[in-house]
């Protein structure tokens, strides 16, 4: 108990997030994962982009970096490559990771650099007032989709899988014990790990789409998702409108900074000749 208090910047509380926002829940899960691994706080670097999720590093007692929109992974790449001893966690929103930062995401995955990338997917640009994002479902309303979203959304996990990460998972803030396991697994993974977390934005998405309170939105997470094992046995018809959650990929692959250390050894050998 009270372990979480060891990892948060108490003087910054209460935080800026709206009542019922899921980002704080994700933060708790990340903190428990760090605590479980017993990593020295001085060796943890948390990097974010901007927006609501971008504020998370400010509340965590690690080395923290709040960057520009979508660029968290590029800063994180520099930090990790410069000093591979760091455990680097990036926290991004759906707009951050998949729109403006989409390129950095696929390339971080391609390199398989040892970074845990948390994508908090609340289907919307929350902080800036509810504009649509690359995950906003077709037909949903947003301040820039007054007639309903006309663009189909990304399937985040398929995108990442095609790019080459070594750990891919999706959880929800409702399924909190499962989320703890998924995030903890991602943090332990040596390689690029992505955990997409389905979360609620009652203020900018829920309200506009008549989804009710944060509680109602979390109930939907329960009802509208199915575990990956169960989904394997379900027909396409049965899976319609459902989001599959759980661990999708957990692979051992050569990690980038380790490969780079080998490159250095080789370069030094060539140099000495």
């Amino acid at each position, binding site marked *: *108990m009270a372990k*979480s208090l060891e990892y948060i910047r108490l003087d910054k509380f209460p*935080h800026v*997030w709206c009542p019922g926002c899921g980002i*704080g*829940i994700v933060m*708790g*899960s990340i903190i428990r994962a760090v605590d479980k691994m017993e990593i020295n706080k001085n060796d943890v670097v948390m990097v974010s982009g901007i927006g609501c999720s971008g504020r998370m590093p400010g509340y965590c007692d690690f080395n923290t970096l709040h960057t520009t929109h979508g660029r968290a992974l590029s800063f994180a790449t520099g930090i990790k490559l410069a000093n591979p001893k760091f455990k680097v966690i990036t926290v991004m929103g759906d707009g951050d990771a998949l729109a403006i930062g989409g390129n950095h995401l696929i390339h971080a995955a391609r390199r398989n650099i040892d970074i845990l990338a948390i994508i908090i997917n609340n289907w919307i640009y929350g902080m800036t007032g509810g504009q649509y994002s690359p995950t906003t479902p077709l037909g949903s309303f947003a301040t820039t989709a007054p007639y309903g979203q006309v663009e189909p959304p990304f399937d985040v996990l398929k995108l990442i899988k095609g790019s080459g990460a070594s750990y891919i998972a999706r959880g929800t803030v409702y399924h909190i014990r499962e989320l703890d396991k998924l995030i903890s697994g991602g943090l332990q993974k040596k390689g690029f790990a992505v955990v997409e977390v389905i979360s609620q934005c009652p203020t900018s998405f829920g309200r506009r789409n008549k989804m009710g309170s*944060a509680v109602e939105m*979390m109930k939907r997470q329960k009802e509208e998702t199915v575990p990956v094992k169960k989904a394997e046995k379900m027909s396409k018809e049965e899976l319609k409108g459902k989001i599959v959650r759980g661990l999708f990929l957990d692979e051992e692959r050569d990690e980038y900074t380790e490969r780079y250390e080998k490159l250095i050894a080789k370069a030094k050998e060539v140099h000495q000749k």
Partner: protein
Amino acid sequence: MSGEKVKLKGIEWKRYGPLLLNREWCKGCGICVAFCPKNVLKIGEDSKVFVDKEEDCTSCTLCELRCPDFAILVER
């Protein structure tokens, strides 16, 4: 004693059985209330959480895990 003040890391908490509440941080979203398996918690007139049936608490920690505001701690 129910409602006893406890200081943790310089922050004031109130103890109700195994539960510690920080009502300063609570934003009254009701998530802990809705998903408590034993209906231990309620939202008060001031729109913040309070412990209604502390004797029913099983220390399952779901409220702590799901609280977005870090406003509930559970002693086990």
